[in-house]
């Protein structure tokens, strides 16, 4: 086995696979995230636009951006995190690139993303 095969074997066998819906940059999603407070566990929702998916395999992450009271908030989630309860895809966006960082500079009406026609 070469290095790549070994890494794949480890990631397939050691890290638990998460079944998440397919989404990509430009989509609007809601992440249901488990938060531990002392002994209690509750679920927090984070809804926003996916800016990018970075990395691969077990260490893959995605960035979600939302506007909270005129201030942009971005959060990075690991795809295989056990704290992600589930992900809802609210809207499929039409964007021309895999990483839409240009969205950070845009405000108001310009920051809209066209929705994909079904």
């Amino acid at each position, binding site marked *: *086995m070469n*290095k790549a095969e*070994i*890494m794949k*074997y*480890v*990631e397939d*066998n*050691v*890290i*638990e696979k998460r079944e998440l819906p397919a989404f990509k940059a430009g989509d609007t999603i809601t992440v249901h995230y*488990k938060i531990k407070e002392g002994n209690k566990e509750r679920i927090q929702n984070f809804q926003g636009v996916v800016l990018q998916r970075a990395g691969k*395999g*077990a*260490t893959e992450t995605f960035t979600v951006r939302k506007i909270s009271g005129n201030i942009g908030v971005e959060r990075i989630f*690991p795809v*295989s*995190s*056990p*704290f992600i309860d589930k992900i809802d895809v609210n809207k499929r966006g039409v964007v021309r690139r895999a990483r839409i960082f240009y969205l950070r500079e845009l405000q108001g009406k310009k920051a809209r993303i066209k929705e994909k026609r079904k």
Partner: protein
Amino acid sequence: MSGLIGKKIGMTSVYDADGKNIPCTVILAGPCVVTQVRSKEKDGYEAIQLAFDDKKEKQTNKAERGHFAKAGISPKKVLAEFSRFESGHQKTFGDIIKVDIFEEGEYIDVVGTSKGKGFQGVVKRHNFAGVGQATHGQHNRLRAPGSIGASSWPSRVFKGMKMAGRMGGNRVKLVNLQIVKIISEKNLVLVKGAVPGSNGSYVIIERWK
């Protein structure tokens, strides 16, 4: 002390029971073969020599071929000596040692050769802070080493003065790394944190007790 020779494969991350992300390094460890046993009577010290990773017969010189033929194995790339294995792991010539000598959760040391950084200045090499300010008319001294000594006395630069030069490529030992997981059927060890060297480089995993 007991140990193994291994090969650094790469890094990944796993999640523990609390859902915490643990960065870890995957090491292909062994199986190693005992190719020589050093004894007090013959060599003046006790140790065993381990061999790891196959290599081509063509790339092996005659002396090495004889050494491996004695142990009855195909030629190996790396040899390393381990001083006295623990009493529970008394090994003899030709024995095969696998990852099962380690346990999950225990602490080990890893020795490797760090990545070569080339010729580096003092800021990167010795964590100097550079000279002075970046603004207020200050000019091209940002990453300079500063003074390297006094003048008429001693009229020389002291030995061992920290200066620019080749960095990296040294033997580095990291101690007390935790074993996160062992996959014995594939001879793999997952160690918490990073390990010296590039992917594909050889490392020595050892445990002192």
